């Protein structure tokens, strides 16, 4: 899966499941504020990542994810790690 494909997939589920307007998804924007995430929403984000990319997010990993770009990079890295594992 290329980085572009990963970004496309993430944006698709954010629009579909988290009901965010596509035009609000800007790489430099803050993920939590844009999606208006509360603690329950993070649980659903874990579920959706697992079902789309096949890996489990550890809660602590979210600490370093601030922007959409951080999120793309994180998923991209985990997918790559999984592929080489």
């Amino acid at each position, binding site marked *: 899966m290329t980085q572009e494909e990963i970004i496309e997939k993430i944006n698709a589920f954010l629009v579909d*499941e*988290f*009901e965010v307007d596509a035009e609000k998804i800007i790489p430099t924007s803050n993920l939590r504020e844009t999606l208006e995430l*509360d603690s*329950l*929403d993070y*649980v*659903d984000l*874990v*579920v959706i990542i*697992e079902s789309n990319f096949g890996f*489990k997010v550890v809660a602590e990993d979210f600490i370093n994810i601030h922007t959409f770009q951080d999120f793309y990079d994180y998923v991209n890295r985990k997918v790559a790690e999984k592929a080489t594992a």
Partner: protein
Amino acid sequence: MHNRVVITGLGIWSCLGKSLEEVKDSLYAGKSGIGMDMERKEWGYRSGLTGIVQRPELKGILDRRARVGLSEEAEYAYMATLEAMKNAKMDMSWVEKNEVGILYGNDSSAKAVSEAIDTIRLKKDTTLLGSGSIFQSMNCTVTMNLSTIFKLKGINFTISAACASGSHAIGLGYLMIKWGLQKHIICGGAQEVNPFAFGSFDGLSAFSVRENDPAKASRPFDKDRDGLIPSGGAATVIIESYESAMERGAPILAEIVGYGFSSNGEHISNSSVDGQIRSLNMALKDAGIEAGSIDYINAHATSTPGGDFAEAQAIDAVFGESKPMVSSTKSMTGHECWMAGASEIVYSTLMMQNNFVAPNINFENPDEASAKLNIVSKTTEKNIDVFLSNSFGFGGTNSSLIIKKIK
């Protein structure tokens, strides 16, 4: 000094329709809502018969956070409550400023529980259940979700009393308002409709196996009945004090005048004529009326051989002289279980408002007990001033409600 308790809003989502108007037409037409669910046969059910209830599409109506916590039955309850609040003229700005409660009957959320357990077994990771699972899985899924969505500030809990849940919810709400503890309560009953909900019930051979003719399968009081048909959806009955309804100019649809209840103290699944008679007499006493004042009885009768026989005996024992019209709307809906006590108040109030008694369809030949009742098998034009609705459940829990036309 007790308060008078009136009904100011009704809402329904059932196999007979998704609005009061649709349901009224189905009742008048004697239309069956029963069909076949072939998935049940794949799961080893004796009977694939079920009420056919459509799932509402809530995307675009409710936001994601509200939707993820809703179980199947809570979705139905949301739709029924939305309709009831609209016709009770309760808008959100009024609700936020007043103490409105919720008492809803529900006694399972098997689909949500089953799916959660399947996920735990498969993934061995509880986080992967998602945030909504807990709010869908608990028995109080309806009251928990609706109190949040509608921002309710009054009494808030679920009544679990098997197939009398919805009736007791209205009865308890009636008592709270009568005694001045609350002014406005959203009452009702909800029932999930899926293969996970009814497997154990099917396993008791309680369901009709007349699969070749679904519309004829539910035949309460008929000599050739062979079991009930599970069904569901949700029904909401908004009740309030007469003074409160008058004060805010709400439409007053009917008055609740009597609530009777009892426990059989006998067998866990068999009916008790004595228990039912005690419930009926208590309701009449509470209403302060004679048996002869009841114009119509919406019977609990589910189409099981033993249950209908006992209820016919109980009705005859109390109403044998006056012989009011009797029908079981379960002949059309199937058994809406936890919801039935509330939906049958909705159905009967619609009949009262529109001057007809809906038929007990498929009643072709009586048995020894039902021959003594005045069972209405065809839609009959009739002015109903007072009706009684029975609900009985496993464990021997009985509930009878008496509703009167406001004049």
